[in-house]
């Protein structure tokens, strides 16, 4: 029996920060997602760390009835199929998964990273703590986006590598960002496998254009959204910040002592804070008042 081989309607190769990513798909949702969010990204220069992703439809009857999307990363299928309507987001989740699981050239931390004045703020927190909402608000208010998902740190020099990609917004944060920044391009609202409503926001053109500019980490902030609370920005001991960063790191331990020392050095040179917030105007003012060195 002949094996099903999809005919790719999408086959692009682009530079995503330090990555050279090839994305293929036979599902129109991926092309639409790329067109809406990735228009500013340059065609691959061939110099980055190569990642190969495909999002393909399931074979057989599933090609026509309740169509599905399958992620293929470097010839393997790490996830179960999802409904085809999630093909574009599946590509994003596949990129996240691949960068988190397979990229060990750099120390990676689950964190958003933004920059102003040549110095970067690492926003490190578990999922659901309001990290992406805060990141989006900062970026669309003028900070440069380095990443919404990963702080990528070069162990050789301690600099952060930009990898600006679409920002994932869930549930109430969608309306917050939509109302505050109506010019921002958002994908159509979808529902993920856990029942959460979400969209992706297009990264600012300027952030994409400056994807090659590495940045010194200056601040480490552990944000937490607490409904109705006044903004609290408290200095925390560096030891606590280091523990939090190692907790949120995907791979420092793969890199052994060099990975640990990289994070310890980043903490040594940064000012470290715990942040509780609910009022975006207030928190943007407080974070904007932090002094660059």
């Amino acid at each position, binding site marked *: 029996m002949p094996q099903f081989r999809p005919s790719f309607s999408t086959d692009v190769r682009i530079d995503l920060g330090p990555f050279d990513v090839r994305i293929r798909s036979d599902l129109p949702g991926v092309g639409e997602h790329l067109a809406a969010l990735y228009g500013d990204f340059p065609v691959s220069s061939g110099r980055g760390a190569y990642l190969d992703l495909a999002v393909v439809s399931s074979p057989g009857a599933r090609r026509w009835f309740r169509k599905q999307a399958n992620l293929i990363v470097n010839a393997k299928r790490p996830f179960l199929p999802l409904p085809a309507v999630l093909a574009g987001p599946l590509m994003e989740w596949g990129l996240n998964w691949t960068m988190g699981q397979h990229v060990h050239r750099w120390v990676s931390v689950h964190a958003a990273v933004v920059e102003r004045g040549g110095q970067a703020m690492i926003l490190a927190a578990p999922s659901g703590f309001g990290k992406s909402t805060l990141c989006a608000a900062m970026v669309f208010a003028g900070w440069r986006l380095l990443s919404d998902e990963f702080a990528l740190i070069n162990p050789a020099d301690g600099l952060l590598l930009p990898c600006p990609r679409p920002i994932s917004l869930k549930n109430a944060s969608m309306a917050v960002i939509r109302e505050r920044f109506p010019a921002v391009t958002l994908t159509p609202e979808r529902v993920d496998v856990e029942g959460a409503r979400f969209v992706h926001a297009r990264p600012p053109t300027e952030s994409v254009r400056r994807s090659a500019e590495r940045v010194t980490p200056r601040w480490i902030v552990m944000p937490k959204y607490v409904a109705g609370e006044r903004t609290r920005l408290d200095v925390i*001991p*560096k*030891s*606590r910040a*280091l*523990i939090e960063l*190692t907790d949120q790191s995907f791979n*420092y*331990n*793969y890199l*052994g*002592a060099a990975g*640990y*020392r990289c994070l*310890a050095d980043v*903490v*040594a040179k940064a000012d470290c804070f715990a942040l509780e917030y609910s009022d975006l105007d207030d928190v943007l003012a407080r974070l904007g008042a932090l002094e660059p060195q």
Partner: protein
Amino acid sequence: MQCSAWSAEPSLVWTHYEDSDDWIVFHPSSGSVYALNSIAHALWQLADIIPASSSDLSVRLAVALSRPCDDAFQAAVQDTIDVMDQAGLLRPVQP
């Protein structure tokens, strides 16, 4: 664990920042990171100088901290040794 003496695991990577008394230690073999207070770190340092039994370490730590080495102190030291043993920060030395 019952053993005659404890020695310090030599491969650890320690970090200390001036803004607190905490010590952070990375265990390369396990890839784990632990936070210790200054007393636990002092205990580890005593075992690093020379392997010693739990009771000897209690006495030496009490002297270093200018504290009485009473039953409560010895019990606290033993609890700390047990935790550091489980974390691989101390090694049992068999006769």
